[in-house]
């Protein structure tokens, strides 16, 4: 009888085990954010994608694709828009960086990237969207230079223009000084 009780208990516990192992699945959270503080037309813009596996299973066949940065608005400098990871362990995160150069200035809406992954063995691929960055103002190159360029040429021109207003009184002073010091020496 005790053996029977033991068998029933083992069967009961094994049911739990089976259920528990079936439930381990991955869940991926994708965040997309801009690394720059200033975004300008004609200057590099780095975008970082962070993928966190908050589930308790391994995510396999993970594919990240960002089709929101069109060729007409952005020039790809470095990095690939569409990449895949073989597996992402639970509780870990991975990073991907893409560097582009905006070709147009003004307001630009940065929308989500898409991730596709297999959450648990033999299951259908799942889709997820990244966080959105929203609308961002891209400074024109002229505006950026106005604020951040070294302005060496402007200061040089300023120096050149101030020379006549400084030199003229100095020449007058110098002439009078030499005239009067010579006279003092003569005396």
């Amino acid at each position, binding site marked *: 009888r005790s053996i029977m009780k033991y068998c029933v208990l083992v069967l009961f516990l094994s049911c739990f085990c089976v259920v528990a192992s079936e439930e381990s699945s991955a869940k991926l959270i994708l965040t997309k954010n801009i*690394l720059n503080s200033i975004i300008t037309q004609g200057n590099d813009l780095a975008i970082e994608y962070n993928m966190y596996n908050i589930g308790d299973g391994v995510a396999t066949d993970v594919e990240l694709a960002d089709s929101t940065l069109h060729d007409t608005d952005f020039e790809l400098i470095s*990095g690939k828009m569409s990449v895949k*990871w073989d597996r992402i362990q639970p509780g870990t995160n*991975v*990073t991907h960086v893409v560097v582009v150069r905006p070709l147009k200035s003004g307001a630009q809406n940065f929308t989500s990237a898409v991730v596709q992954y297999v959450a648990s063995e033999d299951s259908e691929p799942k889709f997820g969207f990244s966080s959105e960055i929203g609308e961002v103002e891209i400074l024109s190159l002229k505006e950026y230079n106005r604020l951040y360029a070294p302005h060496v040429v402007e200061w040089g021109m300023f120096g050149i223009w101030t020379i006549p207003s400084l030199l003229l009184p100095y020449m007058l002073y110098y002439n009078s000084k030499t005239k009067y010091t010579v006279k003092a020496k003569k005396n």
Partner: protein
Amino acid sequence: MANLFVISVLSLLIGSGFCCDQPSVDSSYYTSTNLKLGKNAAFVVELTVKCKNNVQDLKLYADVNGVQYPVTKSPEGNNYQVSWTAKNKKSPAALFDVKFFDESGYNALKKAARINQDANTVKPLFSVDVKHHGMSSGFWVSSELIALAAASLIFYVVCNERSAVIS
């Protein structure tokens, strides 16, 4: 007997299928250099790997200064990319030796870390040098400062002359 032969041949094929023999690497990299755009630095290394035994779909891991990153693969072709960032801290000029390991190398690396062995004993599949020039915001002295210094110098000279004349 024939079965054994078939199994051994298959295992050899499968075994060689996962190891890259004499990889030839074509790499390019990008590092953030403009400090005016922001303090966060991005580092991207892109590579194309061709194995002598024509193995595709390599599972690579990159080691940068003791930190391991999984290497991503583009859906088509032999293009791989590894990228990392340095946020909210300075990124001075440095030469990064990025070591790439395959699956077995990565496991050996983790094992070495576990038993406190020197990580340099694990030989990478190949490595790529990334030269980071450091982040700069143009010339180290701003033009406004130079203009101010020049104006102050002229003012000082003129004041001296004036006080000499007055006294």
